[in-house]
C-alpha cells in the first residue's frame, strides 16, 4: 500500500461519486427484486444489500467532504481495449451458433490482428496463422478427445 502512495495519483472525487451512485442503485435494485422471495431466501440478500447501501452512501459523502485519490490507470489504446472486449463477447455469444471451431478461429484471428503492433509481412501472417492453428488444434484435441468435453458443434451447421 505504501508503495502505491508514491505512484502518481489523480483526484477521485468525480469517479467516487459516480461509483457510489451506481452501487446505491445496484443495492436498491437488489432490495426491490427481493420482494417476492420467501423469508428464508431473502434475509441474506437483503442484509447484504443494506450493507452495500450504507457503505456506498458513506463513499458518496466522503467524495464530497474530502479529496480521495486513485492511482493513475494503466495507459494504452482505448480502441484496442474496446476491440478486445467486443471480440470476447462475440466469441462467447457465437459459440452456440457457430460452433467451437469456427468461432474460435474467427475470434482468435481477430485478436492476433488487435494485439499486433508491428507491420504485417506475408511471412509473418503465414507463420502466425500456422502457430495459431496449431495451438487451437492442440487444445481442441486435448479437450474434445482426451478430456471428452462435448464442445458445441454449432446450431448453424445442424440439419434443420
Amino acid at each position, binding site marked *: *500500500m505504501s508503495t502505491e502512495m508514491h505512484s502518481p495519483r489523480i483526484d477521485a472525487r468525480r469517479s467516487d461519486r459516480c461509483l457510489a451512485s451506481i452501487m446505491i442503485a445496484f443495492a436498491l435494485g437488489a432490495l426491490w427484486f427481493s420482494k417476492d422471495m*420467501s423469508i428464508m431466501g431473502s434475509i*441474506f440478500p437483503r442484509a447484504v444489500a443494506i450493507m452495500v447501501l450504507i457503505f456506498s452512501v458513506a463513499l458518496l459523502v466522503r467524495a464530497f467532504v474530502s479529496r480521495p485519490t486513485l492511482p493513475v490507470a494503466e495507459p494504452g489504446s482505448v480502441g484496442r481495449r474496446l476491440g478486445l472486449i467486443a471480440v*470476447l463477447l462475440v466469441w462467447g455469444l457465437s459459440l452456440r451458433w457457430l460452433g467451437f471451431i469456427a468461432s474460435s478461429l474467427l475470434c482468435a484471428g481477430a485478436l492476433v490482428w488487435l494485439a499486433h503492433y508491428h507491420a504485417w509481412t506475408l511471412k509473418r501472417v503465414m507463420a502466425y496463422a500456422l502457430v495459431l492453428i496449431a495451438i487451437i488444434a492442440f487444445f481442441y484435441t486435448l479437450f474434445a478427445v482426451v478430456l471428452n468435453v462435448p464442445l458445441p458443434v454449432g446450431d448453424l451447421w445442424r440439419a434443420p
Partner: protein
Amino acid sequence: MEILGFMADALSPINLLLAVLGVAAGIVIGALPGLSATMAVAVLVPVTFGMPTEMALIMLGAIYTGAIYGGSYAAILINTPGTPSAIATTFDGYPMARRGDGDLAVTLSTLSSVIGGLVGAVALLTLAPLLAQIALKFGPVEYFWLAIFGLTMISALSEGSILKGFIGAGFGLLLSTVGVSVIGADIRYTFGSQFLLGGVEIISALIGLYCVPVLIDLVATPSAHLKPPEQKRGMRLAEGVGLMCKGKFNALRSSVIGVVVAIMPGAGGSIASLVSYSEARRASPHSERFGHGEPDGVIATETTNNAVVGGGFIPTFVLGIPGTPPDAVILGALLVQGFRTGPEMFTTNAQVTYTFIGGLFIATLVMLPLGLLIGRYAFKSIVSIPKALLVPSIAFMTIIGTYAIRNNPFDVVVMVVLGVLGWVLSRYGIKPSPIVLGLILGPIAEQGFVQGYLMGNASGSVMAIFFGRPLSLAIIALILISVAYPLWRAGRGRSSKEAAHEH
C-alpha cells in the same frame, strides 16, 4: 512397522510410473484455467476402473496433487488462478512475474508445494482420526462465523480504500445469491433467464475477474507481457531454496492452516490459501510489500493449497465425508471399487489406505523435479511468445476452459461480462479480490446463518446458538483480533514511520 511395509508397496516400478504420469497430467490440466483439480480427477476415474485399487488411488492422488500445483503456473504467469486454490498466488506471483522474476516465483511455488504436500501427507498419516473429530465440531454457526472471519480479510486484500473493499465484497456476496437458493428454494435474481438458475459459477467468475482485465491491458500497449530475464539463467533454484529457508516459519504456519481448514468439509482450498495469505501478511515485517511481488506471499499460498490435499483426505477416509470437491470424486471412485470409508480404512483396508498415503508422498516428491522441468518450459514459452499470439492463446484458453467447467456456453458469456465489469470496477478502485471473496464466502455465510437461526428457534434461543458455543466464541475472538490488530499496528506504525521508510 506393517504400515511402512504397506507404504513401501507404493514404490513398485509400475506405481512409480503411474505417479509420474499422474503428476505430469495433473500439472498440465491444473495449469489450464478452468480445468480444475476436480475435473482432472473426474476424467481419470473411468480409467481407474480396470486397475487394482492401490494403483487407481495412487494415480488419482497423483493427478490431484499435480493439478493443485499446476494451478500456480497460470496464476503466476497470466494472473489467472488455474484452480480456485491458486487465487491468492496471483496476488504476489503475478507482480513477481511482471518484474522479471517469474522463474523464481515458479521455483518457489514448486518448493512450497512439495513442503505443503509433505506436511499434509504426514498429517493424514499420523493425526487423521483425531483431526476428523474436530471437523465434526463445525456446525452451521461455526461456518457462519468462519465466513465472517474470512470477510475480515478484505482489509488485507483490498489495496487502497477499505470502504471500496467492503462495497466490492458486498457486490460479490450479492452475486453469490443468484440462482436457486439452497434454503427456501427461491429463484433469486435470474430475471426469467433459465441460464442464471445455476448461479454464477465460481471458477468462471475467477477467470473473468482475474484474466480478462489482464487481456484488456495487454492489447492496449505494445510492451512485453512479462519482463524477460536479463541473461540466460536456470530456474534460480539456489535462490529459491534460500528464500524458503528464510520463510520456513511462514511455510510451516501455512501448511498447518492448510491442514486445519481442509478438514472442514464446508471450506476448501480457496479459503485455506486466502487465510494463510492474510496471516502471512499480518506476520511479515514487510507487510507493505505484499501484493507487489513479495516471495513470502507465494510461499504461503502454495504451501497451503498442497497441504489441503493431504488434509482433505482426513474427513474423506475417516468419516466418509469429502473434505474438498476432488475428494468427493475420489470417494465416489472408492465406493465403485467396493471400498467403504470409515474405521475400516485403517483396519481391514489398511493396506490400500497406507499404500495410497505412500503414493501421495511419492507424488509430492516427484513433483519437485517434474515441476521445475515443466515450469521452466511454461515460463519460457510465455515469455518468448510474441504478444500477437499470446493474447489469442490466453483468450482461447479462458474461453474453452470456462466452457468446459459445466459444458455451458452461457458461462462463457458470464465470464466475459464479469471480466469487463471487474476491469471497469478496478478503474474505480474496487479490486477483484474482495468481489471473489464475497462470491466464495457468500453461500457459507448465508447457509450457516439461516441454518443457525432455525436451530436457535428450535432450541429457544438464537443468541445462545450464535454466541454460546465454545468454538463459535473462539472464532469470534479471532475475528476481533484480526479487526483490532491492523488498527493497533497502524497506530504503532505511525510512530515509527521514519524507520519503515529506510527500506
